[in-house]
């Protein structure tokens, strides 16, 4: 008997496998149910943005700079209560990645700290950058006093001027007790050690580095390494430089390296209670990095926008302007968006972020500065130029 049973059994098993494999045939009720569910999901995502289905949720995707990521995360979260029909998703993949994504059209908007290059404007066709926030980069430091502070002595903040900062990162000023530093810090003169300064910089490509190095370029003609998201550091060549990964890596290096200094975002220094140096600005005034001094820097350059609405705002003239400041931008396609509901929702979100008191206070609490009115008006005027299928998005 077994000789008959085995082949038959095999065939049956094989048949059942075949049937399962060709599950696409609507022969069994189970498969039909599955098909329906899938169809429903597909409908929801595809048709939600069509005018006749405004109730469906709109998914807006953005990607780019990590510098403003904490603010964008809070904004998108808060905005889900303002307009529950919009789901905004922002991924911090870096400015370079964000720009590639918007040029390729794989995201609806991109965030970037660095400016688009001419060839990117060309290949992206209708790209426009809009400043959203400004942030400052501060110099954190850690030196071991040459002798102990007296009991009643409260060490004042370190003060640096623009040229000295350039010289330190050029490895021209290499000792903490260099006359240039001593002259700027008379109160600390006895305590500045005769030790080598280890200058810490970001090892990862970063908008923070771009702002910092652009400032150094503006400060002095001695700075020849240029301003970009990653550069060749003269101080590395001299053997006094160390690269740390991210703000956290730089801060950890500075904390763990006696007699070092480094640069981090103001927001990072504030939220981690790191001591940072005051700088002497172009007007010769001592300034601390904070919302006011950053706003002053933005005001200095409010009429300096190019027709592309971009501006470098380092080394401002104003008496109260902090010199190492930069904008972070949003990038949009201005004429080629075809999904008008999505375009409108996106612009509404951006307008809300720039005007709503709760949105601006969230940004301020995180150590970022919001745009002054003069700049915001220019941004809104540019928003008005965005069209969808030939018609303006904002009425």
């Amino acid at each position: 008997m077994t000789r008959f049973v085995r082949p038959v059994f095999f065939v049956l098993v094989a048949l059942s496998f075949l049937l399962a494999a060709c599950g696409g045939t609507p022969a069994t009720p189970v498969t039909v149910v599955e098909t329906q569910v899938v169809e429903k999901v597909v409908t929801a995502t595809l048709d939600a943005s069509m005018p006749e289905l405004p109730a469906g949720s709109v998914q807006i995707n953005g990607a780019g700079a990590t510098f403003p990521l904490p603010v964008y995360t809070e904004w998108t979260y808060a905005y889900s209560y303002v307009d529950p029909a919009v789901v905004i998703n922002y991924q911090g993949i870096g400015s370079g990645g964000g720009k590639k994504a918007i040029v390729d059209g794989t995201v609806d908007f991109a965030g970037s700290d660095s400016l688009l290059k001419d060839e990117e404007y060309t290949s992206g066709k209708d790209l426009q950058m809009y400043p959203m926030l400004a942030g400052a980069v501060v110099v954190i430091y850690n030196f071991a006093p040459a002798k102990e502070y007296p009991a009643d002595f409260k060490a004042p903040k370190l003060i640096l001027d623009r040229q000295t900062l350039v010289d330190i990162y050029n490895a021209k000023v290499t000792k903490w007790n260099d006359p240039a530093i001593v002259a700027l810090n008379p109160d600390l003169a006895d305590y500045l050690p005769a030790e080598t300064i280890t200058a810490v910089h970001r090892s990862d490509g970063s908008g923070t580095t771009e702002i910092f190095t652009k400032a150094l370029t503006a400060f002095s003609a001695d700075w020849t390494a240029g301003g970009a998201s990653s550069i060749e550091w003269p101080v590395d060549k001299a053997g006094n430089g160390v690269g740390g990964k991210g703000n956290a890596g730089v801060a950890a290096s500075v904390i763990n390296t006696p007699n070092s200094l480094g640069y981090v975002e103001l927001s990072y220094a504030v939220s981690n209670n790191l001591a940072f140096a005051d700088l002497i600005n172009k007007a010769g005034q001592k300034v601390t990095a904070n919302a006011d001094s950053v706003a002053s820097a933005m005001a200095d350059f409010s009429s300096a926008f190019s027709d592309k609405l971009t501006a470098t705002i380092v080394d401002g003239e104003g008496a109260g302007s902090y010199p190492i400041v930069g904008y972070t931008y949003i990038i949009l396609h201005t004429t080629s968006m075809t999904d008008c509901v999505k375009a409108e929702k996106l612009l509404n979100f951006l307008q809300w972020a720039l005007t709503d008191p709760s949105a601006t206070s969230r940004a301020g609490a995180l150590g970022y500065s919001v745009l002054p009115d003069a700049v915001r008006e220019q941004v809104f005027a540019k928003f008005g130029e965005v069209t969808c299928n030939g018609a303006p998005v904002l009425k």
Partner: protein
Amino acid sequence: MTKHIVPLPEQHWLRRLQRSVRHGDKPWQAIIIAMSVLVMLLMIAIGWMLWRESADARAAFGWGFLTPSLDTRWDPVNDKFEAWPFIYGTLLTALAAIVLAIPISLGIAIFMSELCPDWLRMPLNWLVELLAAIPSVVYGLWGIFVFLPAVVTPVGEALFETLGKAPVLSILFTGPIPPSGASRLGAAFILTIMIIPTITAVTRDVLLSIPPSQREASLALGATQWETIWQVLLPYGLSGILGAVILGLGRALGETMAVTMVIGNSIEGSPSLLRPGYTMASVIANEFAEAVTKLHTQALVEIGLVLFFMTLLLNMVARLLVWRVARRTPQEARA
């Protein structure tokens, strides 16, 4: 009652089907072949993509991209790229880590397989496996905050004081080490810790799989336990141990996150172990996301290509080595 079995004709379709799918041999074979072809296709696809995406950089820099030099450029602002500091950093840290890890791992493995009391074997085993399971970023964090200042800096200073003054070795041990400990030495130490579990686990299994007859024979001939381990067990398991070392080296070459966090990420001319450096994997991880110019991106991809070929070459050499060793050892060793 007698059974009447009527055999089906040999060429009946049912018999043919039965023969071909008996024990699932044919379908199984097809699946296996498909999978191994997939692996090959994957390798080819990765290599081809790296080759194609680095075309401009290869054209622009040629072999100069790879030539050793003490004064190299990596300047994204002016689009000047040379990869030697990264190649050197990767090779030096990985080799240093292997040199440090081999004696330690062999020691642990021999202890676990030959000398360990039974009650200790299990916990030790767990600990070694746990070491392998810790994510590399955790090693990096621990490295920055604890290991570098507490261990690497003092060791580095001591090396600088002693070997730094020695005639030839001073090239590798000129200092001083940065006070934070961020250096190639720090990276090599972290890598050592990370590859110890890999080498240990495989070596232990190799030693345990050696038939007891080998040990008994050696001891019966009057060898001490030390002589047995050194002259019988290690040569017997040599090909397996070599394989373990190669696995460890592979991990050391490719490790990214922990190394990035402790190596200092600085391109300086000094070839010293005690100075900050950079590795190929680190520079890709650091700069790729924000690489703006086309040439910068392509130079990074080309570094990926170099790393890819280096790993490929290493594996081929390793395979040759294992074959040669296996040929020399007795028949049983290969079983």
